[in-house]
């Protein structure tokens, strides 16, 4: 190697080539930095695909800001990653779609950069409960989409649709249910409280929660699968292997539209309405772009596109959208929804988690 260097190429040539090489490698990032861009985290898989196809290209066309979509995992894994990265001054995504429980947990460490509503004119379109605020009133997140978890059944096994969450407790359904495995994403305590104890206010006290746990324990013999992974249950529901359970209304609707023997029912006690917020990491440098993005996403017309293409329920007031009654019914329901008690998963999370794990594992 040294021989070879001495022979043909001088020291300067080597240095020059090295310099040229390094600057060439650095160029793309310089070029990229000049463009306006924004990294947006959305749930991976079907959700991200829909956004990539139906929403982001139009946004770039309208604003000139390029979107780099980042697939984020569901649950709180993404929150942990964002938090660790923010401590190091990094933002794996500038704006992320976050669940309500994650929003509250992020608030505790000031992870979310406060949003300036003056720059988000369309925020006034939102239903109040979809604006996520810090205790001191700063705005932590703006409702992105909302969705329902409903009672789903396989139509081959259940000819008649069930009408109430009470079906979970029916002794006839032994070993037939698929339920979400975590207390903070299944919201079964709220379902139990609404179905048997008159409403989620029954969970205000620890005694009330204990009562709900005791009632919920009766469901255990009926449960075949406690799932963390959605694909696991979806497959089993379609094939009839596990013919009943709780699942996402939008995805079930799409599966039914594809010809699978499944249906989603809003029980008379209401579906569980969960929602995701757009939130900006405090480590992000793209504050301007983030506000433009959130404003764009809060337009009633965009919310209507989301309902039609992604199957989510709008976070803006219904009357502002041009959704027909039929289109609205496909993504939502007029039955009063069960709103999860997000506060509990923050103030009592360890206790609830311990009780819950002991309930299903014990």
């Amino acid at each position, binding site marked *: 190697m040294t021989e070879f260097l001495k022979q043909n190429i001088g020291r300067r040539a080597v240095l020059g080539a090295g310099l040229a090489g390094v600057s060439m490698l650095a160029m793309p990032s310089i070029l990229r930095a000049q463009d306006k861009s924004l990294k947006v985290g959305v749930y991976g898989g079907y959700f991200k695909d829909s956004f990539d196809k139906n929403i982001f290209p139009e946004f770039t066309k309208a604003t000139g800001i390029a979107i780099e979509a980042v697939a984020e995992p569901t649950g709180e894994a993404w*929150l*942990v990653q964002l938090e660790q990265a923010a401590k190091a001054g990094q933002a794996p995504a500038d704006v992320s779609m976050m669940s309500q429980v994650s929003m509250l947990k992020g608030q*505790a460490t000031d992870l979310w950069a406060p949003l300036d509503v003056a720059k988000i004119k369309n925020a006034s379109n939102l239903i109040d409960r979809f604006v996520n605020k810090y205790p001191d009133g700063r705005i932590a997140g703006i409702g992105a989409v909302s969705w329902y978890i409903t009672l789903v059944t396989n139509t081959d096994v259940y000819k008649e649709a069930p009408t109430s969450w009470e079906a979970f407790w029916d002794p006839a359904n032994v070993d037939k249910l698929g339920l979400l495995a975590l207390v*903070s994403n299944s919201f079964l305590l709220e379902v139990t409280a609404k179905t048997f104890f008159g409403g989620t206010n029954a969970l205000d006290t620890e005694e009330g929660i204990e009562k709900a746990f005791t009632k919920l324990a009766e469901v255990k013999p009926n449960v075949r*699968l406690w799932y*963390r992974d959605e694909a696991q249950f979806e497959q089993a529901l379609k*094939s009839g*292997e596990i013919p009943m359970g709780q699942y996402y209304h939008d995805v079930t609707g799409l599966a039914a539209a594809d010809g699978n023997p499944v249906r989603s029912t809003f029980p008379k006690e209401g579906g569980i309405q969960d929602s995701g917020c757009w939130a900006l990491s405090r480590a992000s440098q793209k504050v301007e772009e983030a506000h433009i993005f959130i404003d764009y996403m809060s337009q009633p017309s965009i919310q209507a596109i989301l309902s039609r293409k992604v199957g989510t329920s709008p976070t803006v007031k219904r009357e502002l959208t041009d959704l027909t009654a039929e289109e609205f019914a496909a993504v939502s329901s007029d039955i009063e929804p069960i709103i999860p008690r997000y506060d509990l998963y923050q103030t009592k999370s360890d206790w609830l988690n311990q009780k819950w794990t*002991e309930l299903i594992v014990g």
Partner: protein
Amino acid sequence: MRRETPQRLADYGPLFFPAMMLIVFFVVPFATMIAVSFFQRQQGGFYVPAFELSNYQRFLSLFFANVLGFSLMLAIAVAICCVVLAIPFTYLLTRMARKVQIIWLVALLSVLSLSEVIIGFAWSTLFSRTAGITNLLVMAGLMSEAKALLPSFGAVLTGMVYQAFPYTVLVLYPALVRLDPTLTEAARTLGASPIKAFFTVVVPALRNTITATLIMVFIFALGSYLLPQLLGRPQHWTLSVLITDQAIYQSNMPFAAAMAVFLVLVTLGLVALTVIAGRKGEAA
């Protein structure tokens, strides 16, 4: 090649690189984990540096003792099943023609390329009521109607044994290939049946290898957290599943770290016991 004890610092040179890798990728992360296990959990948030024992305290309960006990029992069962299946298999394999051996080994290696997720979903289909193997039994007239074989302990065990089996064979293979065939021949000429020769000559000659293999599969199985979720009921969830829950879903790193440290300590303890017992057995 001459073998001498190293004299000068430079003689230790070749060790620097692996030692550095070990420090960067094992010692530092592990030390971080131990440190975090003493940190203070902020409920509804993350954690702050502190020194407290509450994470370990929470772990010391009947509930977690049961989960830990089950995890160890499952890992031991997987190790024993794997070794019991793999020894005769590998022994017969080493006695086959070279070409056949290669085909078998390539097939086993290709199993290693499958991820735990694929193995889990494949077995859950095979054990299902609607598309599973019981349908074949029904077609053959051996069963009256198809039924689901999962979620069950048997399904978890099958999946995990399937996953660990190629490793077991690959660890046993070199020792069995090198085994002197004259040993069994001597036993046969002295009148032992092939089976008797196998159990009285081959197995004792491989005692150390077998112990090492058992320990390896045991540790491998202890870390499994996906298959118990896919194929088992919640009571078949291992401690690793609960650690994942705490770390990923509850963002309770200190408690997850404490559980992981505890699991490592118990594992090391068990391995040490096995090694000591093995030495005593040799001395006797």
